[in-house]
């Protein structure tokens, strides 16, 4: 069976494209994914739209080749035609699905990912597979009405248009992304998948994919033409995707309510996410150096009562700014060695709405922020990281700035 499939269906080999793409991504991104299971899985979704294009093209060519006049005898009846197209689909999809699932597993193991809920991860992987399967069904539905020579590029470009209009760009938009995720490359701590979104997506893609895969054909003058009923079915199926995208609310990612609760006692209490415990040693050293230097040089305003790693959503509104708790950015390998960025983030009044509003904060704020950062870096021995054009402040000046920032008067 496998022998026959590999010889007669080119789509069998499409797993090689998937494997190549995943291997490439794995080598480049593995260091970034470290510890973060959600990021690892969503990291692969960056490639989904590309693979959907390629798979749609390959499936389209296979369907077109099986619909040419010399193979018409294979399916004189509708039932056996459907069976043949389902066989083509399975031949293409099963190797791809195996490669996909094994890649996810290998990546999770290699990234030493901290897994909070294996069932949600499995569901997310199934949703990714549903996207790829849908692309194969879409290509197959188009290909059976096209000449094999042009079927590939036409289906790939059609898939490109579909992905561009339906997959959307920003995960903050509260609309379902019916064709799947476009991936992530920044830390996903504090986020998890919206399970309802995943379920709706999987069911929708499975149903519409099956309709496309078993779409009816009309034999006319030696070639297959779509009948009126077929055209209507196809349009209704694609239209339902558009309608679903516009009408069904539900962001793909939601906050999981987990806080950074792996706490380490150093120069002060430092709490980080379980995901980042593995790679946090150098960050902890930097944070300890910053806090000890502030203590030793008498910059009491700079000494935080507690340092908490922020989730990808930034400042946690449950924290009282008066408590002296401060936040560091998500400690991903991206910011390894970016001491200036960490110090700046640690010193900034992140609780102030002015920092996240569309109008930028006053010029004075940036000046203060730069001076405070430079002061902190130079007393902690990171002189090379200091910002040009800023001055070193006295403990009293820093105290004054921090008093103002506590009440968000940034002027």
């Amino acid at each position, binding site marked *: 069976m496998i022998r026959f499939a590999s010889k007669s269906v*080119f789509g069998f080999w499409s797993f090689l*494209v998937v494997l190549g*793409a995943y291997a*490439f*991504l794995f080598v*480049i991104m593995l260091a970034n994914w470290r510890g973060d299971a959600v990021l690892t899985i969503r990291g692969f979704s*960056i*490639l989904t*739209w*590309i693979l959907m*294009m*390629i798979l749609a*093209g*390959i499936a389209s*060519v296979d369907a*077109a*080749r099986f619909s040419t006049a010399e193979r018409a005898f294979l399916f004189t009846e509708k039932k056996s035609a459907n069976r043949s197209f389902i066989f083509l689909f399975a031949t293409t999809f099963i190797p791809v699905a195996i490669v996909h699932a094994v890649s996810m597993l290998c990546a999770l193991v290699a990234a030493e990912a901290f897994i909070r809920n294996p069932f949600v991860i499995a569901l997310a992987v199934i949703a990714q597979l549903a996207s790829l399967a849908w692309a194969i069904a879409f290509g197959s539905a188009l290909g059976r009405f096209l000449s*094999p*020579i*042009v*079927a*590939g*590029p036409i289906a*790939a470009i059609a898939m*490109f248009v579909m*992905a*561009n209009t339906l*997959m959307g*760009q920003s995960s903050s938009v509260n609309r379902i992304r019916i064709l799947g995720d*476009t*991936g992530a490359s920044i830390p996903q701590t504090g986020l998890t998948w919206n399970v309802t979104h995943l379920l709706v997506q999987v069911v929708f893609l499975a149903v519409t994919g099956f309709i496309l895969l078993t779409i009816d054909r009309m034999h006319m003058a030696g070639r297959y033409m779509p009948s009126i009923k077929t055209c209507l079915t196809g349009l209704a199926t694609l239209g339902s995707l558009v309608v679903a995208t516009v009408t069904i609310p539900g962001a793909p990612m939601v906050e999981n309510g987990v806080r950074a609760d792996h706490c380490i006692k150093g120069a002060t209490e430092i709490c980080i996410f379980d995901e980042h415990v593995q790679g946090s040693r150098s960050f902890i050293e930097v944070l300890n150096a910053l806090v000890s230097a502030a203590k030793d040089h008498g910059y009491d305003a700079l000494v935080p009562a507690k340092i908490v790693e922020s989730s990808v959503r930034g400042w946690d509104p449950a924290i009282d700014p008066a408590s002296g708790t401060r936040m560091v950015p998500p400690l991903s390998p991206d910011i390894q060695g970016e001491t200036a960025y960490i110090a700046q983030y640690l010193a900034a009044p992140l609780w102030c709405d002015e920092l996240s509003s569309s109008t930028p904060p006053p010029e004075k704020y940036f000046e203060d922020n730069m001076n405070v950062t430079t002061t902190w870096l130079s007393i902690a021995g990171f002189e090379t990281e200091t910002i040009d054009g800023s001055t070193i402040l006295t403990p009293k000046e820093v105290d004054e700035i921090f008093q103002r920032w506590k009440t968000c008067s940034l002027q």
Partner: protein
Amino acid sequence: MILRSIFKVHRTRLGFAILGVSVVVAVLSGSLTLSRLGFNYLSVPVSPALLLAIPAGLGVVIALSGLEHVQRPRNLRRFLSDILHLVLVVAFGVSIYWLTVHSRGFEYVSDLAIIRNFFIVVGLGLPWVTFGRTEHSWLLPFVVTLFATQFGRSADGISYPWWASIIDPFGTVSQLLWAFLLFVSATVLYITDPRFASRKNAHGL
């Protein structure tokens, strides 16, 4: 007369129709600037005319297909006629696309880049014709383009590694050289048709 029959047995009409459509779309859309392809941002923005060289090149590849399932004689005359046909079709495709785009003077696409992309697409597509799978000649040019947008970012952020040069709108001479080398290898494969090169098959023709 002979040329006409050569054109007749190949998919000249379909190939040149694809070329023509690509030229028309390139002329209409060439003044736009794409800063991203799909969901991938490009290091350097490109004109659609740069990317439409890919379907145009595929048109040339398709115009060269048609006899891939036929065992042809292996003698000098056939080699020469194949070379003539190939050079004519490729030269026609490249020059018509290049001259049209060049005359419009679009930004973010250069003459060097167009010719390079033609060589890359024909170089990656023609081997599929040689091995009897013309319908998959689109696959490698598409995969290379998409992978280039995804993985082709170099450290400085403005140039591309050699394998991703298909989306570099300006192009360098060394890119053109390796693209030409790829094209020449594909051409040699196409003309010598190694599938039928064994003594047993060649006998009796």
